[in-house]
């Protein structure tokens, strides 16, 4: 008999040893899943605890900002809790024709409502502070929603002892935590009105707008008419330095359809989410409507560009999600010069003298004037 071979002989026929040896196997065989579930439950519950702390912190930030900057007459706590739970029901998509207009309508109503709620708290506050409060509130309600969703699946998995729900939750937890972390980071930038990574588009266009007369073209959006090498430039960005994204879609539509300006080319500048491994602040060129969000603005720009057969050029600045919503990184700020050069080069190469060129700086213009 080999010395390492296991069997009764090795243990001197002692049944107790035998039992002790096989017990763990049996335990894992029959209760393995439960043990695993127990461990996953612990892990998810710790993550949920972290999310809860983030939620409390963000709620406090909202209240602090309102109390310190908007100086409301009454205690805003109750109203903040109400606004954090504010929901939007998206239009039904069973019959998708014309859905973009419906989405636009619902979103406009939502934004107006939130703005008016903040105004109601502090009637005589300036616009920059109101838009900052909106931004902070939006980040806080995102964190609130993430927390509630994770809590829902955690409790559901626990109550029904469903390991598959818990495993899925455990798998995506690191990403959820990172995203929540990014939102908490964003709060810091918002409350000090510092430019965020997403503001690079407005920053490039804002520089071109300096010392020119501005006109309102759509809600929270300004336009400037200037010239470059015999071309007429129409520059569009959201109104800064408040935290606005404006309505670039409506602005482009209005300029072309209502004001009847014949545009020969559209150049859009926006921040784009990078892939893992790409460098922050890298500039890339392409075609198409470079604009994120729910899709209303992109739809409008694509529609009018297609109808009028206007080429759409895009210049994007690569960054991660956390960079896009936190204080602008040096690499991104320094990319502005390169982007400006590319835009002017595009104007020279793709258009003729006397052409009308539309340049749109897309993004949240917090901390960036014009």
């Amino acid at each position, binding site marked *: 008999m080999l010395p390492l071979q296991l069997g009764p002989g090795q243990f001197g026929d002692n049944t107790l040893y035998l039992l002790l040896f096989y017990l763990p196997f049996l335990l894992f065989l029959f209760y393995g899943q439960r043990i695993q579930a127990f461990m996953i439950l612990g892990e998810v519950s710790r993550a949920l605890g972290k999310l809860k702390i983030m939620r409390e912190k963000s709620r406090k930030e909202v209240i602090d900002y309102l109390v310190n900057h908007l100086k409301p007459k009454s205690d805003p706590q109750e109203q903040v809790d109400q606004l954090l739970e504010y929901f939007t029901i998206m239009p039904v998509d069973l019959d998708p024709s014309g859905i973009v207009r419906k989405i636009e309508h619902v979103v406009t109503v939502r934004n107006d409502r939130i703005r008016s709620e903040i105004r109601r708290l502090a009637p005589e506050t300036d616009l920059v502070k109101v838009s900052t409060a909106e931004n902070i509130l939006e980040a806080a309600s995102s964190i609130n929603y993430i927390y509630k969703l994770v809590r829902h699946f955690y409790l559901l998995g626990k109550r029904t002892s469903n390991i598959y729900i818990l495993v899925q939750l455990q798998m995506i937890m690191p990403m959820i935590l990172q995203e929540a972390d990014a939102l908490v980071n964003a709060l810091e930038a918002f409350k000090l009105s510092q430019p965020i990574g997403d503001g690079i588009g407005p920053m490039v266009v804002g520089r071109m707008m*300096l010392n020119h007369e501005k006109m309102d073209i759509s809600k929270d959006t300004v336009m400037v008419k200037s010239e470059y090498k015999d071309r007429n430039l129409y520059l569009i960005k959201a109104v800064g330095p408040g935290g606005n994204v404006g309505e670039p879609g409506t602005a482009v539509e209005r300029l072309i359809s209502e004001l009847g300006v014949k545009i020969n080319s559209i150049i859009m500048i926006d921040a784009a989410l990078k892939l893992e491994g790409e460098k922050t602040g890298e500039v890339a060129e392409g075609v198409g409507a470079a604009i994120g969000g729910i899709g209303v603005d992109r739809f409008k720009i694509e529609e009018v560009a297609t109808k009028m057969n206007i080429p759409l050029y895009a210049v994007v600045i690569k960054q991660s999600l956390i*960079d896009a919503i936190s204080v*602008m990184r040096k690499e991104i*700020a320094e990319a502005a010069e390169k982007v400006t050069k590319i835009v002017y080069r595009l104007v020279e190469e793709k258009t003729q003298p006397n052409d009308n060129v539309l340049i749109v700086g897309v993004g949240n213009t917090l901390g960036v004037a014009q």
Partner: protein
Amino acid sequence: MATMIPSIGEKRGKQIVYTIEECLGCGEKNKRTFTVGDYVFKQNGQCKKCSGNILITMIYAEPIKPTQ
């Protein structure tokens, strides 16, 4: 797949936010820490050298470098 999961990015450590001012007259640049009320393209006083207008051209964050 790519559009669904973009890079969320690394966790940011402690950072200092700087304001970069530029004189429109002589082009002199000045880097200082951010103060509340600063925003990009704000006219911020006059240049000591040439009394040209000073403009804030950039506001950005840099990670705190570990002291050697």
